């Protein structure tokens, strides 16, 4: 059974673990550097990117996470997308910079601007009910990355080989298609 970690510093990590279970994979709560061993992939959940930045380096070093994400599959949602991407000018947030996409934090405004919308997936003909919570925007997609979901023509999910980043929260719905895509196309592509 595939073992997929969920970074559990702060945020919606339990919801991701539930979705992973529904897909017959073994979720592993990740809070320490040692938790990264033997994982086939990792999810960086939504939460506050400032909080995750602040606490990395305590029991889980930044360098360990970076080294993991260079080789193994990582799926970032919302705050996780920000961590994977580039170009955030806010000094309160540190990015891994591995996903070739420029991300703007909290691009829609305060919570009353949060929304749900049916988005278009590149890998499935049926729309996906996506939940956007104080969501980031993907401002620019670099050459290395491909767009795998759009909403009104704008990229909301991008993939770069073993890395996947979404501006929305597939873990908040019962629809497992996005996690399934991550497992089939990112996890199984990356070296064990």
């Amino acid at each position: 059974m595939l073992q997929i970690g969920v970074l559990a510093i702060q945020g919606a990590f339990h919801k991701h673990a539930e979705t992973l279970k529904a897909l017959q994979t073994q979720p592993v709560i990740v809070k320490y550097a040692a938790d990264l061993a033997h994982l086939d992939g990792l999810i960086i959940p939504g939460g506050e990117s400032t909080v995750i930045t602040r606490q990395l380096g305590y029991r889980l070093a930044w360098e360990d996470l970076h080294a993991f994400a260079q080789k193994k599959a990582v799926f970032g949602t919302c705050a996780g997308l920000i961590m994977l991407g580039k170009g955030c000018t806010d000094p309160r947030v540190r990015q891994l910079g591995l996903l070739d996409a420029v991300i703007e934090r909290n691009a829609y405004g305060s919570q009353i601007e949060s929304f749900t919308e049916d988005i278009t997936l590149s890998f499935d003909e049926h729309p996906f009910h996506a939940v956007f919570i104080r969501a980031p925007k993907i401002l620019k997609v670099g050459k290395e990355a491909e767009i795998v979901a759009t909403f009104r023509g704008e990229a909301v999910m991008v993939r770069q080989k073993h890395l996947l980043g979404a501006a929305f929260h597939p873990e908040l719905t019962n629809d497992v298609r996005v996690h399934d895509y991550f497992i089939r196309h990112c996890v199984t592509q990356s070296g064990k």
Partner: protein
Amino acid sequence: MEKSSYEVKVGLAEMLKGGVIMDVTNVDQAKIAEDAGAAAVMALERIPADIRAYGGIARMSNPEMILKIKEAVSIPVMAKCRIGHFAEAQILEELGIDFIDESEVLTPADEENHIWKHDFKAPFVCGCRDLGEALRRIGEGAAMMRTKGEAGTGDIVEAVRHMREVNRGIRRLQMMDKEELMAEAKRLGAPFSVVEIVAQKGRLPVPNFAAGGIATPADASLMMQLGAEAVFVGSGIFKSEDPSARAEAIVKAVTYYTDPAVLLEVSKGLKDAMLGRPAKGLPDDEQLAKRGW
């Protein structure tokens, strides 16, 4: 595009899990809180311990102060309105607050009715002492629950009582036959539809956080181990002698709440916690948890 659905409101509460929400009264404190790793801040004119000392009527904070804090930090900003005071809530929503706390810490505006929270675009958090109270608030549209505890005392005893009460109520529901649920809903004074969901799922349909009397990393860990999904710290940080270090210690204690080595490490070297006062000795009219029903 659908904004402000219940799903979106509960969604933000989900994102705050595993975090610490800190009471702050000015921009400097808000920045200290954010730098220490707060997942959100609660903007208010006076922290609960000072509300107790100050007396008078405690109302919604000055919107200008809340706006300044909103500008200073990038994390979600919450603010309190009085129980039943939907006009205060309308003002908070208009200024773009991320979460409204319909709070017993302020002087209630209505002793019978809470706000009908479904009508608002902004999500609400409410306090509870037991399952019935939690389910009534959820019925009215609350997107997050928290224990009431006894705010501003630095005494954890009431928060523990309330968390255990809620969890005991949930366990009772899980053991019941379908036939018993209606009678239990009547006993709890809770909407049947929500009772049914809780009986089925074995948990509240919204995140359940701890608040009221948390003053140390150990307090935060205790509440997390009792089932809280995140922690509010009110007076405990800025009434202590070392707000920044204590805030950071509590943040770590919440993430690593089951790791005694971390708890020991972050507890060492802290200066004095807030002095506090026992919740038990409070006269009736000073017991904030009794406000609301």
